[in-house]
């Protein structure tokens, strides 16, 4: 084996320039995939964190049929108190659930006595909501005491309306809503702050306390439009969702992950597709480069192959010489690529790239994506093996008499 390895290594250094060019091409591909993958994954994770940590939470439970009418914010597809209690009991029994927050979502009119505007309100229990969406606090502006983001009698107005209606902190405004029986009711609330939309100033989500919503919508006890759930370990989202969906009564409830509730999941999927595309490009680079260099290598050394075959070298040994050569080329290029990529990613992590996506503050801290590296190394090695196999088999199948006579 050591002689085969020796021959393979020395043959790589025999055509130094050609080997260096191919190795550089593969290394650049590896660097690009790992750095791009690291940045893209960091962007994706940051985006998911913002959306799940301040808006949707990880999983939501609704009354069956609610989500298909979600744009209308229907008032007649709510979970009753008994159903909410049943769902909460099931949720609390799940080991990966860390918190849950019942919400009432409804449309209302908001007036400062001079102007009126439509608004979408989310009624919450502040303590439960903060445990479920801890990053919501970062979207609340103007409120000094953030230990409770909204108290009974207070309202957090969407930023757009806050500015559009020229509101000030402490102003009193009237919120008018229709309940499910068609009765209109109003309540006066004090502006305690304003909330930034996730996607920018176009968002119209305001927050009030659930007690005020119960009173405004003339409910005897709170009826809930959704229960938001935060998981202890986000990576177990799929299994946690499945367990919850399997346990809960499907005739009464419906369970959705955050991905099913927001178009942002499409962006996440696009990022995944981009990573996949970059991997496909890398695969093509490795395949074509190594196959090309190995085919040239076999063609140039036909006489040499004939000579070693004449000396009694077995076909499988000839195959090993060429196979090892291609594998070594892939391995060396990958190792160099991985080292350079780690250096680049470490620099990027230290410098911490920050930018705004909509109104989301995204900080790219890619870290070292070990799984991405493992996938990339595996791809390069597998493709190197595939690309080398055909020329290596060709070399091993050459008849010595034909190979020796090759000019």
């Amino acid at each position, binding site marked *: 084996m050591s002689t085969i390895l*020796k021959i393979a290594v020395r043959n790589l250094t025999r055509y130094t320039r050609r080997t260096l060019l191919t190795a550089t091409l593969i290394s650049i591909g590896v660097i690009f995939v790992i750095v791009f993958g690291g940045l893209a994954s960091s962007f994706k994770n940051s985006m998911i964190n913002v959306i799940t940590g301040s808006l949707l939470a990880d999983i939501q439970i609704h009354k069956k049929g609610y989500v298909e009418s979600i744009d209308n914010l229907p008032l007649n597809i709510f979970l009753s108190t008994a159903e909410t209690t049943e769902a909460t009991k099931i949720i609390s029994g799940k080991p990966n659930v860390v918190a849950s927050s019942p919400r009432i979502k409804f449309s209302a009119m908001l007036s400062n006595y001079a102007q009126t505007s439509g608004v979408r309100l989310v009624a919450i229990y502040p303590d439960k909501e903060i445990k479920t969406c801890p990053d919501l606090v970062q979207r609340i502006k103007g409120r000094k005491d953030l230990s409770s983001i909204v108290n009974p009698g207070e309202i957090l107005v969407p930023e757009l309306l806050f500015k559009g209606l020229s509101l000030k902190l402490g102003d009193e405004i009237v919120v008018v809503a229709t309940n499910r029986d068609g009765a209109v009711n109003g309540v006066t609330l004090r502006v305690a702050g304003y909330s930034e939309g996730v996607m920018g100033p176009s968002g119209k989500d305001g927050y009030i306390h659930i007690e005020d919503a119960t009173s405004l919508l003339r409910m005897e006890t709170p009826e809930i439009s959704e229960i938001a759930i935060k998981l202890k370990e986000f990576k177990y989202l799929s299994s946690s969702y499945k367990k919850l969906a399997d346990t809960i009564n499907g005739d009464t409830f419906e369970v959705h992950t955050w991905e099913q509730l927001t178009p942002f999941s499409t962006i996440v999927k696009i990022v995944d597709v981009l990573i996949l595309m970059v991997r496909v490009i890398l695969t093509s680079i490795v395949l074509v480069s190594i196959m090309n260099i190995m085919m040239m290598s076999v063609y140039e050394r036909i006489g040499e192959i004939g000579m070693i075959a*004449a000396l009694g070298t077995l076909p499988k040994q000839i195959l090993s010489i060429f196979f090892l050569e291609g594998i070594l080329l892939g391995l060396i290029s990958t190792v160099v690529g991985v080292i350079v990529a780690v250096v680049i990613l470490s620099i990027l992590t230290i410098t911490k790239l920050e930018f705004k996506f909509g109104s989301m503050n995204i900080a790219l801290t890619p870290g070292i994506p070990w799984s991405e590296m493992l996938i990339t190394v595996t791809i390069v090695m597998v493709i190197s093996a595939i690309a080398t196999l055909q020329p290596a088999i060709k070399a091993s199948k050459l008849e010595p008499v034909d190979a020796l006579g090759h000019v």
Partner: protein
Amino acid sequence: MALIELKNVNKKYHSGEVIVNAARDITLEITEGSFVAFVGPSGSGKSTLLNLVGCLDMPTSGSISILGTKVDSLDRVARAKFRGDHLGFIFQNFSLIPVLTVYENIEYPLVMVKNLPKEERQEKVRSLLEKVGMLDQMNKYPNQISGGQKQRAAVARALVSNPKIVLADEPTANLDSESAMQVIKVMHRMQEELGTTFIFSTHDQKIVEEAEIIYHLKDGVIVDRIDRKLRA
């Protein structure tokens, strides 16, 4: 008993649309320890005959028996093993492996074919390097030595695994006359010291003079056989 026995061997191959009869009804016997030359002009069938005896090619018809083994019935892998075990080769174009040193080239059959331990290999390689006068060149690569030195290294490699038969296709064709004679003398000495059978092809008359048995070939047919031992 004959070491090599060819009976009614024919070899035809296609060259475009033309069928070439490279060997026609060849029957010969070569005994152990002979120094044999296949002589003839280009296209006479010398190399074809060497390739058949060296198990590098298969006859179209007829039988070839070497050391009692009917080699024409062996498959590709078995022929490769047979070559490694019993035959040594010297090629016209100084076919040393360019990425290995002279020492490593000579050691190659012992590692790849015989799989001998390092100490045993070292002893054999050094002994042969000394015999062919290449001990001082052993760490050089083929591109750092002369043509004559390459052929002497090739002779050492052909002999390192103690083969019964060494086949050399025009071993002196690319050498000046002085180097050519040196190589032939080395081969001769090895034949005498080790009892190895040497079979080579050549059209160099000076080299032919060194052979004990000479087969003259023309158009794939043996037209004459001269045994100098008998004459002497």
